């Protein structure tokens, strides 16, 4: 994505015309100027969706964190993205759309499968998957559509953990992307409504089959754990299990791939950063954190107010919607020095790319592991890289995505071993 920070015309856009809903803003990279302006002049910003639902935007780091950490005042059960500001039909029934105490019933047994410890244990297998995915492509060199290739990275990270067999790894990421951005021409099959319906049908068909298998033969994966857990004194029903499978797949696919693409693009455009990493591969962990801050694949997270609250000095009543813009928080100049600079060595980096609070990303550890492994393979196999054609961005106010990223890759002549962990 174009990471244009504010330039001399930084305040040219009057507040009145700032529309954070409009998906085309994100397609053209115009969100950063708007967020910068709002952080400075209007930290609580009301506007309406095209359907007439009012939402209040918070853009400063401290306000975004405060909203996400106070789940007793800000509910997830109504829906967490602007596209369903009217209310999500899965509300209250799947991990990311539940409040306490039910939320913990699902989160506690599943988080064990993707803890930092579990993700590290799994790293050798994940490394093999990553090598299978990128090894030959990088070694062959030439122009690679990184956006297309990276779509498959999330399955390398958590396919087995969720319980998805490799034969669905190829098709599933596109369906997931169509499900999150049905309006984008890159993933569309007919109208947005048709695209969404097809994506859901295909995903549900795959999940239903796997649920049947796991009922017969449970193993140690998310699907099996969902089947066995105690959901407020009863097992989950079929629909609840399906919705949770959907949440885990969407949570992994729509985010991890985008961070990977943004990372590769950032390096392809910044020879100095690439050189620094080649010089000191021990920067891989900080570079991964910087790529998370930089990409912030979920632009916003929506919440519904449960009790009267004060947000950045403005009183907001129960029933109102608040959008916490993590993409903006991660460019907040009061927290991140030189926020529009991609710095692979950035050390203090308290980014909110994984959110914070009750719903903080459960898949963070495997995502960090797979991004580190990808970067290690890139460093071991590639001499230099350069953007080689038009880069296109996802038409979505929710996911900060790249749909095409042609990169010319020059392979190294003798491979260097680069293994950090």
């Amino acid at each position, binding site marked *: 994505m174009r990471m244009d920070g504010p330039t001399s015309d930084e305040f040219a856009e009057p507040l009145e015309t700032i529309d954070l809903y409009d998906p085309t803003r994100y397609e053209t990279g115009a969100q950063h100027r708007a967020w910068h302006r709002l952080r400075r002049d209007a930290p609580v910003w009301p506007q309406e969706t095209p359907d007439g639902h009012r939402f209040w935007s918070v853009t400063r780091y401290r306000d975004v964190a405060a909203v996400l950490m106070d789940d007793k005042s800000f509910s997830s059960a109504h829906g967490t993205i602007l596209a369903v500001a009217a209310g999500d039909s899965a509300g209250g029934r799947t991990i990311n759309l539940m409040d306490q105490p039910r939320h913990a019933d699902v989160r506690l047994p599943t*988080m064990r499968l993707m803890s930092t410890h579990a993700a590290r244990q799994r790293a050798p297998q994940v490394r093999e998957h990553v090598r299978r995915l990128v090894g030959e492509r990088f070694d062959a060199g030439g122009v690679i559509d990184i956006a297309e290739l990276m779509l498959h990275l999330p399955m390398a990270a958590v396919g087995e953990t969720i319980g998805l067999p490799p034969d669905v790894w190829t098709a599933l990421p596109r369906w997931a992307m169509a499900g999150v951005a049905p309006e984008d021409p890159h993933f569309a099959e007919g109208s947005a409504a048709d695209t969404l319906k097809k994506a859901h049908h295909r995903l549900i068909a795959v999940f239903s089959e796997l649920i049947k298998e796991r009922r017969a033969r449970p193993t140690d994966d998310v699907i099996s754990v969902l089947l066995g857990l105690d959901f407020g004194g009863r097992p989950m029903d079929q629909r609840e299990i399906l919705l949770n499978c959907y949440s885990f797949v969407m949570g992994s696919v729509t985010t991890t791939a985008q961070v990977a693409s943004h990372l590769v693009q950032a390096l392809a455009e910044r020879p100095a950063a690439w050189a620094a990493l080649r010089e000191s591969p021990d920067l891989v962990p900080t570079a991964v954190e910087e790529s998370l801050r930089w990409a912030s694949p979920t632009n916003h997270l929506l919440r519904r107010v449960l009790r009267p609250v004060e947000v950045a000095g403005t009183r907001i009543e129960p029933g109102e919607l608040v959008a916490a813009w993590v993409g903006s928080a991660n460019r907040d100049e009061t927290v991140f020095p030189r926020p529009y600079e991609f710095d692979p060595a950035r050390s203090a980096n308290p980014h909110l790319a994984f959110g*914070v609070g009750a719903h*903080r990303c459960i898949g963070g550890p495997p995502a960090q592991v797979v991004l580190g492994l990808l970067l290690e393979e890139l460093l071991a196999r590639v001499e230099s890289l350069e953007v080689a054609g038009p880069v296109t961005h996802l038409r979505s106010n929710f996911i900060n995505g790249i749909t095409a990223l042609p990169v010319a890759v020059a392979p190294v002549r003798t491979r260097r071993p680069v293994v950090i962990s």
Partner: protein
Amino acid sequence: MTTVDITVDKDRCVGSATCVVVAAGSFVLDEHDRSEPTSQAGSDLDGVEQAEQLCPTAAIRVVRSG
């Protein structure tokens, strides 16, 4: 003298990192992403009490005695 006992029930902790953020230095997440109080936790009681209130699953307990 007042002593303060700060504990985290790891079976309830959902790894929200809320305590790590609002009481910086007083809590860390272990390798299973469950929180535990650090040796400095006693020095920022305001932060720790805020964490206790915000903790989504009431996993943090602050007990004063003496």
